[in-house]
Protein backbone atom coordinates (compact mmCIF):
# COMPACT_ATOMS: atom_id res chain seq x y z
CA UNK A 1 0.00 0.00 0.00
CA UNK A 2 0.83 3.63 -0.34
CA UNK A 3 0.81 3.79 3.44
CA UNK A 4 2.53 1.83 6.17
CA UNK A 5 0.50 -0.62 8.26
CA UNK A 6 0.71 1.81 11.14
CA UNK A 7 -0.81 4.60 9.08
CA UNK A 8 -3.54 2.27 7.86
CA UNK A 9 -4.24 1.22 11.43
CA UNK A 10 -4.64 4.82 12.55
CA UNK A 11 -6.64 5.64 9.45
CA UNK A 12 -8.99 2.69 9.80
CA UNK A 13 -9.38 2.97 13.57
CA UNK A 14 -8.59 6.55 14.38
CA UNK A 15 -8.10 7.27 18.09
CA UNK A 16 -9.80 10.22 19.79
CA UNK A 17 -12.18 11.13 17.02
CA UNK A 18 -14.91 13.59 17.76
CA UNK A 19 -15.55 16.81 19.59
CA UNK A 20 -14.85 17.66 23.20
CA UNK A 21 -17.76 19.35 24.90
CA UNK A 22 -15.59 20.77 27.67
CA UNK A 23 -12.60 21.65 25.55
CA UNK A 24 -10.77 24.75 26.68
CA UNK A 25 -8.60 25.00 23.56
CA UNK A 26 -9.69 24.48 19.96
CA UNK A 27 -7.42 24.84 16.93
CA UNK A 28 -8.27 24.56 13.27
CA UNK A 29 -5.71 24.51 10.47
CA UNK A 30 -5.60 23.69 6.82
CA UNK A 31 -7.56 24.69 3.82
CA UNK A 32 -10.53 22.94 2.35
CA UNK A 33 -9.41 23.83 -1.13
CA UNK A 34 -6.38 21.66 -0.64
CA UNK A 35 -8.52 18.96 0.78
CA UNK A 36 -7.16 19.10 4.32
CA UNK A 37 -8.70 20.60 7.45
CA UNK A 38 -7.84 19.53 10.97
CA UNK A 39 -9.65 20.66 14.02
CA UNK A 40 -8.24 19.75 17.41
CA UNK A 41 -9.96 20.00 20.80
CA UNK A 42 -7.93 19.92 24.00
CA UNK A 43 -8.91 19.90 27.63
CA UNK A 44 -6.12 21.32 29.75
CA UNK A 45 -6.04 20.81 33.47
CA UNK A 46 -3.17 22.20 35.57
CA UNK A 47 -0.94 22.52 32.54
CA UNK A 48 -1.62 18.94 31.46
CA UNK A 49 -3.64 17.91 28.42
CA UNK A 50 -6.06 15.54 30.05
CA UNK A 51 -8.23 14.94 27.03
CA UNK A 52 -8.02 15.54 23.30
CA UNK A 53 -10.24 14.91 20.31
CA UNK A 54 -10.00 15.73 16.64
CA UNK A 55 -12.02 16.05 13.50
CA UNK A 56 -10.31 15.92 10.15
CA UNK A 57 -11.42 16.45 6.58
CA UNK A 58 -8.57 15.05 4.56
CA UNK A 59 -6.70 12.17 3.10
CA UNK A 60 -5.64 8.99 4.80
CA UNK A 61 -2.42 10.56 5.99
CA UNK A 62 -4.24 13.55 7.41
CA UNK A 63 -6.56 11.35 9.43
CA UNK A 64 -3.75 9.07 10.59
CA UNK A 65 -1.47 11.93 11.62
CA UNK A 66 -4.34 13.59 13.51
CA UNK A 67 -5.00 10.37 15.32
CA UNK A 68 -1.35 9.76 16.12
CA UNK A 69 -0.79 13.34 17.24
CA UNK A 70 -3.68 13.16 19.70
CA UNK A 71 -2.24 9.97 21.16
CA UNK A 72 1.16 11.57 21.47
CA UNK A 73 -0.01 14.62 23.41
CA UNK A 74 -2.67 13.06 25.57
CA UNK A 75 -1.57 13.21 29.21
CA UNK A 76 1.39 15.39 28.35
CA UNK A 77 2.12 18.85 29.70
CA UNK A 78 1.55 21.76 27.38
CA UNK A 79 5.30 22.27 27.19
CA UNK A 80 5.84 18.72 26.04
CA UNK A 81 2.95 18.95 23.59
CA UNK A 82 4.50 22.02 22.01
CA UNK A 83 7.67 20.02 21.49
CA UNK A 84 5.79 17.61 19.22
CA UNK A 85 7.26 17.88 15.75
CA UNK A 86 5.78 16.65 12.52
CA UNK A 87 8.90 14.54 12.20
CA UNK A 88 8.07 12.74 15.44
CA UNK A 89 4.56 12.07 14.19
CA UNK A 90 5.87 10.70 10.89
CA UNK A 91 8.32 8.48 12.75
CA UNK A 92 5.64 7.21 15.07
CA UNK A 93 3.60 6.31 11.98
CA UNK A 94 6.57 4.48 10.49
CA UNK A 95 6.87 6.89 7.63
CA UNK A 96 4.71 8.72 5.13
CA UNK A 97 5.06 9.08 1.37
CA UNK A 98 6.93 12.32 0.51
CA UNK A 99 3.85 13.86 -1.06
CA UNK A 100 2.05 13.45 2.26
CA UNK A 101 4.54 15.09 4.59
CA UNK A 102 2.47 18.26 4.56
CA UNK A 103 -0.27 16.40 6.39
CA UNK A 104 2.04 15.77 9.33
CA UNK A 105 2.90 19.46 9.32
CA UNK A 106 -0.79 20.14 9.62
CA UNK A 107 -1.02 17.85 12.65
CA UNK A 108 1.83 19.68 14.39
CA UNK A 109 0.17 23.00 13.56
CA UNK A 110 -3.20 21.80 14.82
CA UNK A 111 -1.73 21.03 18.24
CA UNK A 112 -0.08 24.46 18.39
CA UNK A 113 -3.26 26.16 17.27
CA UNK A 114 -5.27 24.42 20.01
CA UNK A 115 -2.70 25.44 22.64
CA UNK A 116 -2.68 28.99 21.30
CA UNK A 117 -6.46 29.09 21.64
CA UNK A 118 -6.18 27.81 25.20
CA UNK A 119 -3.85 30.68 26.10
CA UNK A 120 -5.99 33.20 24.29
CA UNK A 121 -9.03 32.13 26.29
CA UNK A 122 -6.95 32.74 29.41
CA UNK A 123 -6.18 36.21 28.11
CA UNK A 124 -2.53 35.33 27.52
CA UNK A 125 -0.86 36.28 24.25
CA UNK A 126 0.11 32.89 22.79
CA UNK A 127 2.68 34.43 20.45
CA UNK A 128 5.76 34.23 22.69
CA UNK A 129 4.87 30.77 23.95
CA UNK A 130 3.53 28.98 20.87
CA UNK A 131 5.33 30.92 18.16
CA UNK A 132 4.18 31.25 14.58
CA UNK A 133 1.81 28.51 13.59
CA UNK A 134 2.74 28.97 9.98
CA UNK A 135 1.14 27.94 6.75
CA UNK A 136 1.26 24.74 4.85
CA UNK A 137 4.03 25.03 2.35
CA UNK A 138 2.72 22.23 0.22
CA UNK A 139 0.17 24.44 -1.42
CA UNK A 140 -0.13 27.83 -2.90
CA UNK A 141 -3.82 28.33 -2.22
CA UNK A 142 -5.17 31.47 -0.62
CA UNK A 143 -7.96 31.09 1.90
Amino acid at each position, binding site marked *: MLYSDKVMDHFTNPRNVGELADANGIGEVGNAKC*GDIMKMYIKVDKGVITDVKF*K*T*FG*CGAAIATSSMATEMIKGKTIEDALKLTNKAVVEALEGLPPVKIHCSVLAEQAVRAAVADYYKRLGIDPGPIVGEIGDCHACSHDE
Partner: protein
Amino acid sequence: MAETRFVYADNAATTKISDAVFDAMVPWLKEGYGNPSSIYRKGDEAARAVLKAREQVAAALGAEPREIYFTSGGSEADNWAIKGVAHTFAKKGKKHIITSVFEHHAVLHTCDALRKEGFEITYLPVDDMGLVSVEDVKNAIREDTALVSVMYANNEIGTVQPISEIGALCHERKVLFHTDAVQAVGNLPIDVKAQQIDLLSLSAHKIHGPKGVGALYCRRGILLPNLIDGGGQEGGHRAGTENVAGIVGLGVAITKAMETLPERAARLRALRDRLIDGLLPIERCRLNGDREKRLPGNVNISFEGVEGESLLLTLDAHGICASSGSACTSGSLDPSHVLLAIGLPAEVAHGSLRLSLSDDTSEEDVDYMLSVIPGVIEKLRAMSPLWER
Protein backbone atom coordinates in the same frame (compact mmCIF):
# COMPACT_ATOMS: atom_id res chain seq x y z
CA MET B 1 -22.84 -4.54 7.47
CA ALA B 2 -22.75 -7.02 4.63
CA GLU B 3 -19.83 -9.38 4.26
CA THR B 4 -16.90 -8.07 2.28
CA ARG B 5 -17.06 -8.64 -1.45
CA PHE B 6 -14.58 -7.58 -4.09
CA VAL B 7 -16.15 -5.04 -6.43
CA TYR B 8 -14.06 -3.40 -9.11
CA ALA B 9 -15.88 -0.17 -9.94
CA ASP B 10 -13.05 1.74 -11.56
CA ASN B 11 -13.44 0.62 -15.15
CA ALA B 12 -12.88 4.14 -16.44
CA ALA B 13 -9.35 3.91 -15.04
CA THR B 14 -8.71 0.52 -16.56
CA THR B 15 -10.49 -2.76 -17.15
CA LYS B 16 -9.72 -6.40 -16.69
CA ILE B 17 -8.55 -8.15 -19.84
CA SER B 18 -11.38 -10.42 -20.93
CA ASP B 19 -10.77 -14.13 -21.31
CA ALA B 20 -11.37 -13.90 -25.05
CA VAL B 21 -8.74 -11.19 -25.37
CA PHE B 22 -6.26 -13.00 -23.18
CA ASP B 23 -6.70 -16.23 -25.11
CA ALA B 24 -6.22 -14.37 -28.38
CA MET B 25 -3.02 -12.76 -27.09
CA VAL B 26 -1.28 -15.82 -25.70
CA PRO B 27 -0.19 -17.38 -29.01
CA TRP B 28 1.55 -14.10 -29.86
CA LEU B 29 3.36 -14.08 -26.54
CA LYS B 30 4.47 -17.67 -27.12
CA GLU B 31 5.22 -19.24 -30.48
CA GLY B 32 4.02 -16.34 -32.60
CA TYR B 33 7.01 -14.22 -31.77
CA GLY B 34 8.04 -13.39 -35.32
CA ASN B 35 8.70 -9.78 -36.24
CA PRO B 36 5.92 -8.63 -38.59
CA SER B 37 8.54 -6.97 -40.79
CA SER B 38 10.38 -10.22 -41.35
CA ILE B 39 9.95 -11.98 -44.65
CA TYR B 40 9.77 -15.59 -43.51
CA ARG B 41 6.53 -17.27 -42.56
CA LYS B 42 6.92 -16.69 -38.84
CA GLY B 43 7.13 -12.97 -39.54
CA ASP B 44 4.34 -12.98 -42.03
CA GLU B 45 1.97 -14.73 -39.61
CA ALA B 46 2.53 -11.86 -37.20
CA ALA B 47 2.01 -9.33 -39.98
CA ARG B 48 -1.29 -10.98 -40.84
CA ALA B 49 -2.40 -10.88 -37.23
CA VAL B 50 -1.63 -7.16 -37.12
CA LEU B 51 -3.51 -6.63 -40.36
CA LYS B 52 -6.52 -8.49 -39.05
CA ALA B 53 -6.55 -6.32 -35.94
CA ARG B 54 -6.29 -3.24 -38.12
CA GLU B 55 -9.34 -4.39 -40.04
CA GLN B 56 -11.18 -5.03 -36.80
CA VAL B 57 -10.44 -1.57 -35.43
CA ALA B 58 -11.38 0.01 -38.75
CA ALA B 59 -14.65 -1.91 -38.88
CA ALA B 60 -15.53 -0.83 -35.35
CA LEU B 61 -15.11 2.83 -36.30
CA GLY B 62 -16.47 2.77 -39.84
CA ALA B 63 -12.99 3.55 -41.13
CA GLU B 64 -10.66 1.94 -43.61
CA PRO B 65 -7.81 -0.26 -42.37
CA ARG B 66 -5.20 2.03 -43.80
CA GLU B 67 -6.62 4.89 -41.73
CA ILE B 68 -5.74 3.07 -38.50
CA TYR B 69 -2.33 3.49 -36.87
CA PHE B 70 -1.46 1.50 -33.81
CA THR B 71 0.10 3.38 -30.92
CA SER B 72 1.20 2.67 -27.38
CA GLY B 73 -2.11 3.93 -26.01
CA GLY B 74 -4.54 6.78 -25.86
CA SER B 75 -2.00 9.32 -24.68
CA GLU B 76 0.35 8.74 -27.59
CA ALA B 77 -2.56 8.94 -30.02
CA ASP B 78 -3.68 12.25 -28.52
CA ASN B 79 -0.16 13.67 -28.61
CA TRP B 80 0.46 12.54 -32.15
CA ALA B 81 -2.83 13.87 -33.50
CA ILE B 82 -2.64 17.26 -31.85
CA LYS B 83 1.08 17.94 -32.14
CA GLY B 84 1.06 16.58 -35.66
CA VAL B 85 -1.76 18.79 -36.89
CA ALA B 86 -0.34 21.78 -35.03
CA HIS B 87 3.10 21.47 -36.58
CA THR B 88 1.72 20.83 -40.05
CA PHE B 89 -0.57 23.85 -40.06
CA ALA B 90 1.91 26.12 -38.34
CA LYS B 91 3.78 26.11 -41.64
CA LYS B 92 0.69 27.58 -43.24
CA GLY B 93 0.42 30.22 -40.55
CA LYS B 94 -2.42 28.49 -38.74
CA LYS B 95 -1.41 28.39 -35.12
CA HIS B 96 -4.74 28.34 -33.30
CA ILE B 97 -6.21 25.28 -31.63
CA ILE B 98 -9.55 24.91 -29.91
CA THR B 99 -10.13 22.44 -27.13
CA SER B 100 -12.16 22.31 -23.93
CA VAL B 101 -11.15 22.96 -20.34
CA PHE B 102 -12.07 19.49 -19.22
CA GLU B 103 -10.19 17.30 -21.65
CA HIS B 104 -8.02 14.48 -20.39
CA HIS B 105 -4.50 15.57 -19.47
CA ALA B 106 -3.16 13.80 -22.56
CA VAL B 107 -4.94 16.52 -24.55
CA LEU B 108 -4.64 19.41 -22.10
CA HIS B 109 -0.96 19.02 -21.36
CA THR B 110 -0.25 18.52 -25.05
CA CYS B 111 -2.01 21.80 -25.73
CA ASP B 112 -0.11 23.43 -22.89
CA ALA B 113 3.16 22.26 -24.42
CA LEU B 114 2.11 23.73 -27.77
CA ARG B 115 1.14 26.96 -26.08
CA LYS B 116 4.67 27.25 -24.74
CA GLU B 117 5.92 26.71 -28.27
CA GLY B 118 3.94 29.70 -29.44
CA PHE B 119 0.58 28.24 -30.43
CA GLU B 120 -2.59 29.91 -29.29
CA ILE B 121 -5.09 27.67 -27.54
CA THR B 122 -8.74 28.43 -26.86
CA TYR B 123 -10.00 26.38 -23.94
CA LEU B 124 -13.78 26.21 -24.30
CA PRO B 125 -15.77 26.22 -21.08
CA VAL B 126 -18.25 23.50 -20.20
CA ASP B 127 -21.62 24.16 -18.63
CA ASP B 128 -22.66 22.93 -15.21
CA MET B 129 -23.96 19.73 -16.78
CA GLY B 130 -20.51 19.01 -18.20
CA LEU B 131 -21.31 19.76 -21.82
CA VAL B 132 -19.40 21.71 -24.43
CA SER B 133 -21.64 23.97 -26.53
CA VAL B 134 -21.50 23.74 -30.31
CA GLU B 135 -22.23 27.46 -30.38
CA ASP B 136 -19.04 28.09 -28.40
CA VAL B 137 -17.03 26.02 -30.85
CA LYS B 138 -18.55 27.98 -33.70
CA ASN B 139 -17.67 31.30 -32.14
CA ALA B 140 -14.16 30.21 -31.36
CA ILE B 141 -13.23 29.15 -34.89
CA ARG B 142 -11.03 31.71 -36.60
CA GLU B 143 -9.23 32.11 -39.87
CA ASP B 144 -6.08 30.66 -38.36
CA THR B 145 -7.70 27.75 -36.53
CA ALA B 146 -5.98 24.48 -37.40
CA LEU B 147 -7.76 22.03 -35.15
CA VAL B 148 -10.70 21.49 -32.85
CA SER B 149 -10.15 18.74 -30.27
CA VAL B 150 -13.13 17.86 -28.09
CA MET B 151 -13.44 14.56 -26.27
CA TYR B 152 -16.26 12.19 -27.13
CA ALA B 153 -17.07 11.40 -23.50
CA ASN B 154 -15.47 12.75 -20.40
CA ASN B 155 -13.48 10.29 -18.30
CA GLU B 156 -14.53 11.64 -14.92
CA ILE B 157 -18.17 12.58 -15.19
CA GLY B 158 -19.00 10.55 -18.28
CA THR B 159 -20.79 13.31 -20.16
CA VAL B 160 -21.17 12.73 -23.89
CA GLN B 161 -20.34 15.69 -26.09
CA PRO B 162 -22.17 16.74 -29.28
CA ILE B 163 -19.52 15.17 -31.50
CA SER B 164 -21.56 14.85 -34.69
CA GLU B 165 -22.57 18.50 -34.54
CA ILE B 166 -19.02 19.61 -33.90
CA GLY B 167 -17.84 17.35 -36.72
CA ALA B 168 -20.34 18.88 -39.13
CA LEU B 169 -19.40 22.38 -38.05
CA CYS B 170 -15.67 21.76 -38.44
CA HIS B 171 -16.23 20.18 -41.80
CA GLU B 172 -18.22 23.19 -42.95
CA ARG B 173 -15.58 25.57 -41.66
CA LYS B 174 -12.76 23.44 -43.05
CA VAL B 175 -11.06 22.94 -39.74
CA LEU B 176 -9.76 19.52 -38.73
CA PHE B 177 -11.60 17.77 -35.93
CA HIS B 178 -9.99 15.41 -33.44
CA THR B 179 -11.84 13.59 -30.72
CA ASP B 180 -10.41 11.69 -27.79
CA ALA B 181 -12.75 8.69 -27.82
CA VAL B 182 -10.84 6.68 -25.23
CA GLN B 183 -13.90 6.52 -22.97
CA ALA B 184 -16.46 6.39 -25.75
CA VAL B 185 -15.21 3.36 -27.65
CA GLY B 186 -17.19 0.32 -26.67
CA ASN B 187 -19.74 2.43 -24.86
CA LEU B 188 -21.23 4.63 -27.56
CA PRO B 189 -21.82 4.14 -31.28
CA ILE B 190 -19.06 5.59 -33.47
CA ASP B 191 -18.97 6.14 -37.19
CA VAL B 192 -16.11 8.39 -38.13
CA LYS B 193 -17.44 9.03 -41.62
CA ALA B 194 -21.01 9.86 -40.65
CA GLN B 195 -19.79 11.91 -37.71
CA GLN B 196 -17.17 13.67 -39.84
CA ILE B 197 -14.35 12.93 -37.44
CA ASP B 198 -10.91 13.51 -38.91
CA LEU B 199 -8.81 12.09 -36.11
CA LEU B 200 -9.80 9.85 -33.22
CA SER B 201 -7.82 8.40 -30.31
CA LEU B 202 -8.61 5.17 -28.54
CA SER B 203 -7.00 2.86 -26.00
CA ALA B 204 -7.35 -0.90 -25.53
CA HIS B 205 -7.17 -1.10 -21.76
CA LYS B 206 -10.45 0.72 -21.30
CA ILE B 207 -12.37 -1.95 -23.19
CA HIS B 208 -11.05 -5.15 -21.62
CA GLY B 209 -7.94 -5.11 -23.78
CA PRO B 210 -4.32 -4.86 -22.67
CA LYS B 211 -2.52 -1.79 -21.34
CA GLY B 212 0.06 -0.14 -23.55
CA VAL B 213 -1.70 -0.29 -26.88
CA GLY B 214 -4.12 2.03 -28.63
CA ALA B 215 -4.77 3.49 -32.00
CA LEU B 216 -5.13 6.70 -33.89
CA TYR B 217 -7.66 6.92 -36.67
CA CYS B 218 -6.41 9.51 -39.15
CA ARG B 219 -8.63 10.20 -42.12
CA ARG B 220 -7.12 9.37 -45.48
CA GLY B 221 -5.52 12.42 -47.01
CA ILE B 222 -4.35 13.90 -43.74
CA LEU B 223 -0.59 13.58 -43.50
CA LEU B 224 0.77 13.99 -40.02
CA PRO B 225 4.47 14.31 -39.30
CA ASN B 226 5.63 11.32 -37.27
CA LEU B 227 5.78 11.51 -33.52
CA ILE B 228 8.06 8.46 -33.51
CA ASP B 229 10.42 8.23 -36.48
CA GLY B 230 12.34 5.15 -37.51
CA GLY B 231 11.50 1.90 -39.24
CA GLY B 232 8.81 1.41 -41.83
CA GLN B 233 6.10 0.11 -39.51
CA GLU B 234 2.56 1.49 -39.79
CA GLY B 235 3.22 2.55 -43.35
CA GLY B 236 6.28 4.48 -42.26
CA HIS B 237 4.22 6.69 -39.96
CA ARG B 238 4.87 5.17 -36.55
CA ALA B 239 8.14 3.38 -35.97
CA GLY B 240 8.83 0.56 -33.58
CA THR B 241 8.47 -3.19 -33.69
CA GLU B 242 4.76 -3.83 -33.38
CA ASN B 243 3.35 -4.96 -30.04
CA VAL B 244 1.74 -7.89 -31.84
CA ALA B 245 0.06 -9.48 -28.85
CA GLY B 246 -1.26 -6.13 -27.68
CA ILE B 247 -2.53 -5.20 -31.11
CA VAL B 248 -4.27 -8.56 -31.48
CA GLY B 249 -5.81 -7.98 -28.06
CA LEU B 250 -7.05 -4.56 -29.10
CA GLY B 251 -8.62 -6.03 -32.24
CA VAL B 252 -10.54 -8.65 -30.32
CA ALA B 253 -11.51 -6.24 -27.55
CA ILE B 254 -12.91 -3.59 -29.86
CA THR B 255 -14.79 -6.17 -31.90
CA LYS B 256 -16.46 -7.58 -28.79
CA ALA B 257 -17.14 -4.13 -27.44
CA MET B 258 -18.80 -2.86 -30.58
CA GLU B 259 -20.70 -5.90 -31.77
CA THR B 260 -22.88 -6.23 -28.69
CA LEU B 261 -23.06 -2.53 -27.94
CA PRO B 262 -26.82 -1.91 -27.63
CA GLU B 263 -27.45 -4.81 -25.24
CA ARG B 264 -24.34 -4.13 -23.23
CA ALA B 265 -25.08 -0.43 -22.93
CA ALA B 266 -28.67 -1.08 -21.90
CA ARG B 267 -27.56 -3.42 -19.13
CA LEU B 268 -24.94 -0.94 -17.93
CA ARG B 269 -27.41 1.93 -17.96
CA ALA B 270 -29.79 -0.04 -15.77
CA LEU B 271 -27.02 -0.80 -13.26
CA ARG B 272 -25.83 2.78 -13.36
CA ASP B 273 -29.29 4.20 -12.78
CA ARG B 274 -29.93 1.87 -9.89
CA LEU B 275 -26.66 2.98 -8.34
CA ILE B 276 -27.42 6.66 -8.86
CA ASP B 277 -30.94 6.35 -7.53
CA GLY B 278 -29.70 4.41 -4.56
CA LEU B 279 -27.04 6.95 -3.63
CA LEU B 280 -28.74 10.26 -4.34
CA PRO B 281 -30.98 10.04 -1.25
CA ILE B 282 -27.84 10.51 0.85
CA GLU B 283 -27.95 13.98 2.41
CA ARG B 284 -26.16 16.84 0.65
CA CYS B 285 -24.83 14.98 -2.31
CA ARG B 286 -25.11 15.71 -6.02
CA LEU B 287 -24.71 13.85 -9.27
CA ASN B 288 -22.00 15.41 -11.39
CA GLY B 289 -22.64 15.66 -15.10
CA ASP B 290 -25.78 15.42 -17.18
CA ARG B 291 -27.85 12.43 -16.23
CA GLU B 292 -28.98 11.57 -19.75
CA LYS B 293 -26.03 12.49 -21.94
CA ARG B 294 -23.83 10.17 -19.99
CA LEU B 295 -21.72 7.08 -20.48
CA PRO B 296 -23.77 3.99 -19.69
CA GLY B 297 -21.41 2.95 -16.91
CA ASN B 298 -20.49 6.25 -15.24
CA VAL B 299 -21.61 7.40 -11.81
CA ASN B 300 -20.00 10.49 -10.32
CA ILE B 301 -21.38 11.86 -7.09
CA SER B 302 -20.01 14.46 -4.68
CA PHE B 303 -20.62 14.09 -0.97
CA GLU B 304 -20.18 17.25 0.99
CA GLY B 305 -17.89 17.08 3.99
CA VAL B 306 -16.03 14.03 2.76
CA GLU B 307 -12.54 13.98 1.28
CA GLY B 308 -11.86 11.75 -1.70
CA GLU B 309 -8.77 9.84 -0.70
CA SER B 310 -10.06 8.82 2.68
CA LEU B 311 -13.29 7.78 0.99
CA LEU B 312 -11.41 5.61 -1.50
CA LEU B 313 -9.25 4.04 1.18
CA THR B 314 -12.27 3.22 3.28
CA LEU B 315 -14.07 1.74 0.30
CA ASP B 316 -10.95 -0.26 -0.52
CA ALA B 317 -11.04 -1.68 2.98
CA HIS B 318 -14.56 -2.83 2.09
CA GLY B 319 -13.32 -4.39 -1.14
CA ILE B 320 -14.58 -1.64 -3.45
CA CYS B 321 -12.20 -0.15 -6.01
CA ALA B 322 -13.33 3.32 -7.01
CA SER B 323 -11.89 6.62 -8.00
CA SER B 324 -12.16 10.23 -7.05
CA GLY B 325 -11.17 12.16 -10.13
CA SER B 326 -8.99 10.88 -12.90
CA ALA B 327 -6.74 7.95 -12.08
CA CYS B 328 -3.56 9.59 -13.19
CA THR B 329 -3.99 12.58 -10.98
CA SER B 330 -4.46 10.71 -7.75
CA GLY B 331 -1.62 11.71 -5.48
CA SER B 332 -2.15 15.28 -6.55
CA LEU B 333 -3.27 17.84 -4.01
CA ASP B 334 -5.40 19.71 -6.47
CA PRO B 335 -9.06 18.97 -6.90
CA SER B 336 -10.11 17.58 -10.27
CA HIS B 337 -10.00 20.12 -13.08
CA VAL B 338 -13.13 18.53 -14.52
CA LEU B 339 -15.21 19.06 -11.40
CA LEU B 340 -13.96 22.62 -11.00
CA ALA B 341 -14.85 23.19 -14.66
CA ILE B 342 -18.49 22.31 -14.05
CA GLY B 343 -18.55 24.77 -11.19
CA LEU B 344 -18.04 22.70 -8.07
CA PRO B 345 -16.34 24.46 -5.14
CA ALA B 346 -12.93 22.95 -4.44
CA GLU B 347 -13.95 21.38 -1.15
CA VAL B 348 -16.92 19.67 -2.76
CA ALA B 349 -14.82 18.52 -5.69
CA HIS B 350 -12.50 16.85 -3.20
CA GLY B 351 -15.37 14.73 -2.01
CA SER B 352 -16.39 13.20 -5.30
CA LEU B 353 -16.72 9.52 -5.98
CA ARG B 354 -16.56 7.98 -9.43
CA LEU B 355 -17.96 4.49 -9.82
CA SER B 356 -17.44 3.19 -13.33
CA LEU B 357 -19.03 -0.06 -14.37
CA SER B 358 -18.30 -2.58 -17.08
CA ASP B 359 -19.46 -5.91 -18.41
CA ASP B 360 -17.80 -7.47 -15.39
CA THR B 361 -20.09 -5.58 -12.99
CA SER B 362 -23.01 -7.60 -11.64
CA GLU B 363 -26.31 -6.74 -10.00
CA GLU B 364 -24.85 -8.12 -6.78
CA ASP B 365 -21.94 -5.72 -7.09
CA VAL B 366 -24.39 -2.84 -7.24
CA ASP B 367 -26.33 -4.21 -4.28
CA TYR B 368 -23.12 -4.46 -2.32
CA MET B 369 -22.02 -0.93 -3.14
CA LEU B 370 -25.41 0.39 -2.16
CA SER B 371 -25.17 -1.47 1.13
CA VAL B 372 -21.69 -0.17 1.95
CA ILE B 373 -21.35 3.38 0.66
CA PRO B 374 -23.94 5.19 2.79
CA GLY B 375 -22.36 3.89 5.99
CA VAL B 376 -18.90 4.88 4.84
CA ILE B 377 -20.05 8.39 4.04
CA GLU B 378 -21.65 8.63 7.45
CA LYS B 379 -18.52 7.44 9.22
CA LEU B 380 -16.31 9.92 7.40
CA ARG B 381 -18.69 12.76 7.95
CA ALA B 382 -18.76 11.95 11.63
CA MET B 383 -15.08 12.80 11.78
CA SER B 384 -15.22 15.73 9.40
CA PRO B 385 -14.93 19.30 10.71
CA LEU B 386 -16.70 20.46 7.55
CA TRP B 387 -19.79 18.47 8.27
CA GLU B 388 -20.70 20.11 11.59
CA ARG B 389 -21.05 23.45 9.83
